[in-house]
């Protein structure tokens, strides 16, 4: 009762945003650059999707749809893809778009200094057929190539040359770090890094306008409580993310809406498969986690439903594999390790650890939603089956170096497949680490399975959907049986907006301005 009147009192005083079409929004991180090829990170690509466009783009349901290319078709027997470009498109500075810009953008985005280079690893050559046709040749058949370049944004070659921004410059920055010239629905009129970025609609955009925004301003707000206060007081129209604990409160308010969805990111625990012994253990020299029974015991010891119920407040879905059900190539009907402390203890006893053991759990404290709370809860759950985990939580800038230097006995990791395909986590997390082949670069524990390594190249080059899915299923099964990782849940996506705002949420957590309507 008390809570109800409280909420009513709260909603009564919330002021409505003053002007309707001037849209303001807040995110935790400011896009660190305006250069679409300099940094391959969600805040940058998400923001720039409003300004720049690729040959293809993703629709409201994540499906691939035409953008600067009107259509595309495979060349021959998997030699590559031919893209037919849209005619009559102009960049925001008035220059016309043609095949030269595509070639230039390929060279720019695939250069050694570009962070987006890995997208073009399968590409052997890009050929201009005519002004509006481009062939992209791949070294092996690549069925998912068009969908893997949805975030490859096209830049005007003349504009880049005129402003000395032919290549991205991460270290010192250049003209393209602060200025933009895309073909997208919005153009940046004011950029103050870390403070505010203002966009207005681009009048010469080729597409059909759905939004009614006249001006949009992004302000980064790091402190979640401040961001929430800004939304509640009507100072901003939209925030991302909403702290998970505040969802229920916001839902009660008439002036604010919560938009929830499932993100592509899986939160999991990783093991030191390769290590000779534990780093932070008092009593054991050996590495218990190299024993599959111990890993299975851990999987059984973790009460995922309880984590979802309390820490995630019922806003997340459990996971049993490295991708969520929304991803391409998801394995149906895979088993999962139920929460069963007795079975966990039995497995531990079987492996020779009836009395448990102690080890160090590494965890970031500012990377994933409530990451530190989740790790604390895991410590408690493991204690109940007799394993003592010492938690070491740290900011993410300290976290990755620790993992790279193998300073962990177990670690928390979140993985969002950039391609929205099940192949992605296999390449980065399950393949045996190999510098030269650029495989397993996030496989910190050094998990290695010959069959998985054998299947990966086949998955990458198989065109037939059914055949490909069968191989993905096999890998998912191996990873499940071996308990290579402990997938726990799919991180929820929680946005908050004024109730007068219509918008579309995509699982990649990109906020697309052209789908926003202010009522």
């Amino acid at each position, binding site marked *: 009762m008390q*809570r109800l009147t*409280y909420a009513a009192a709260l909603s009564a005083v919330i002021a409505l945003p003053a002007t309707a079409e001037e849209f303001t929004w807040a995110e935790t991180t400011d896009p660190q650059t305006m250069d679409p090829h300099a940094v391959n990170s969600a805040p940058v690509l998400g923001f720039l999707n409003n300004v720049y466009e690729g040959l293809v783009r993703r629709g409201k349901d994540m499906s691939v749809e035409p953008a600067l290319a009107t259509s595309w078709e495979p060349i021959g027997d998997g030699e590559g893809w031919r893209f037919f470009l849209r005619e009559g498109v102009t960049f925001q500075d008035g220059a016309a778009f043609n095949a030269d810009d595509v070639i230039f953008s390929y060279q720019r985005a695939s250069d050694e200094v570009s962070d987006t280079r890995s997208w073009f690893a399968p590409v052997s050559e890009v050929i201009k057929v005519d002004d509006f046709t481009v062939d992209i040749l791949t070294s092996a058949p690549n069925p998912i190539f068009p969908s893997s370049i949805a975030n490859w944004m096209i830049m005007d070659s003349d504009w880049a040359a005129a402003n000395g921004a032919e290549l991205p410059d991460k270290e010192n920055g250049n003209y393209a770090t602060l200025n933009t010239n895309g073909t997208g629905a919005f153009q940046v009129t004011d950029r103050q890094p870390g403070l505010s970025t203002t966009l207005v609609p681009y009048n010469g955009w080729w597409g059909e306008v759905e939004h009614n925004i006249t001006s949009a301003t992004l302000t980064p707000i790091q402190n*979640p*409580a401040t961001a*929430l*206060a800004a939304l*509640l007081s009507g100072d901003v129209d939209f925030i991302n993310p909403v*702290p998970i*604990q*505040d969802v*229920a*409160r916001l839902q009660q308010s008439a002036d604010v809406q919560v938009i929830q969805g499932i993100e592509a990111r899986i939160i999991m625990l990783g093991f030191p498969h390769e290590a000779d012994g534990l*780093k*932070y253990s008092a009593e054991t020299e050996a590495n218990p986690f190299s024993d599959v029974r111990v890993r299975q015991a851990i999987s059984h010891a973790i*009460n995922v439903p*309880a*984590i979802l*119920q*309390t*820490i995630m407040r019922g806003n997340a879905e459990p996971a049993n594999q490295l991708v969520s059900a929304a991803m391409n190539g998801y394995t149906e009907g895979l088993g999962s390790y139920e929460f069963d402390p007795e079975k966990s203890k039995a497995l531990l006893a079987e492996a020779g650890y009836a009395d448990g053991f102690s080890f*160090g759990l590494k965890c970031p*404290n500012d990377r994933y939603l*409530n990451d*530190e*709370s989740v790790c*604390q*809860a895991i*410590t*408690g*759950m*493991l*204690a*109940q089956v007799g394993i003592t*985990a*010492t*938690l*070491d*939580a740290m*900011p993410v800038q300290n976290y990755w170096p*620790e993992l790279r230097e193998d*300073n962990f006995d177990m670690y928390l990791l979140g993985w969002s497949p950039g391609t929205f395909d099940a192949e992605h986590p296999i390449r980065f997390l399950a393949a045996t680490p190999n510098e030269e082949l650029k495989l397993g670069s996030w496989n910190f524990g050094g998990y290695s399975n010959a069959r998985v390594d054998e299947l990966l190249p086949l998955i990458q080059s198989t065109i037939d959907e059914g055949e490909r899915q069968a191989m993905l299923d096999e890998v998912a099964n191996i990873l499940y049986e071996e308990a290579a990782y402990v997938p726990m849940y799919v991180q929820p996506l929680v946005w908050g907006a004024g109730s007068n705002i219509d918008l579309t949420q995509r699982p990649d957590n990109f906020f697309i301005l052209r789908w926003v309507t202010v009522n």
Partner: protein
Amino acid sequence: MTDTPLSQPEAAKGRWARLKESDFFFDFTHSPVAMVSFVVVCILVFSAVFAPWIAPTNPFNPASLNLMNGFTPPSTPNAFTGETFMLGTDDQGRDVFSTILYGMRISLFVGVSAVLFAMVLGIILGLVSGYFGGWTETIIMRIADVQLTFPSILVAMLIFGVAKGFTPVEYRDQMAIWVLILAIGLSDWVQFARVVRGATIVEKNKDYVAAARLIGRKPWAIMIRHILPNAMSPVLVIATISLALAIIAEATLSFLGVGAPPTQPSLGTLIRVGQGFLFSGEWWILFFPACTLLALALAVNLLGDWLRDALNPRLR
């Protein structure tokens, strides 16, 4: 005892025994604020020291926690487990009352240790610089000047950053507490040093010190036995006020992510964690720790205030 009768009024109050005989207790018994503060401090310190016996649960023992108890409102049965907690539970299902007791333990431990550290360091440097003078004094006081202008939170952050790099990974959790003590202590010694140095300069030229020197007493003995007692009452006042400041400083540092870790929470850490639940309606996770911190710091501050007035006869 070779003490000569002390002429200065504040110096005359130097000894604890003398304080007892003086107006001190009269003052105390006639100041309700002082008495209430004293009682509050005593209760809080007592419950912190005896937390393991008073607290219903041990929040540091992960095996005793049930996550399903999370977010239980105060004195209301949990919807899943049916358990009831006087002050409710936090996100991990920990009893808020117990975390406060244990948190206060850490806050007080950090605060008291930091102040003791600052006091000892300040007294030593103050005595040395006042007694020996010359370049020793110049160097110490120069450092003190810089220290005084350089803000304490920046000093603490710097020390924290450096210490983190030098500590082996497996000790980092325990390290946090000791680094906090070091950081807060190091940013706080100057006041002690200045007061002690001032008193030392006044006293060292007095006849009795000269006499002690003549009969061959060591400088250390003279400083500690004869000079220091004269500076003890201002030192006591500064120590009390510094204690409140140190407890708050620890809380502030925890907001910047350099405080006690959530696995070993201080009151400040509890408040930092609790502020995340301010808007979501779980007010008790923030409210009770904040009230405890307020009560503790306020009582210590008021006590320090009263102590200053009581020990400073010029304000009578």
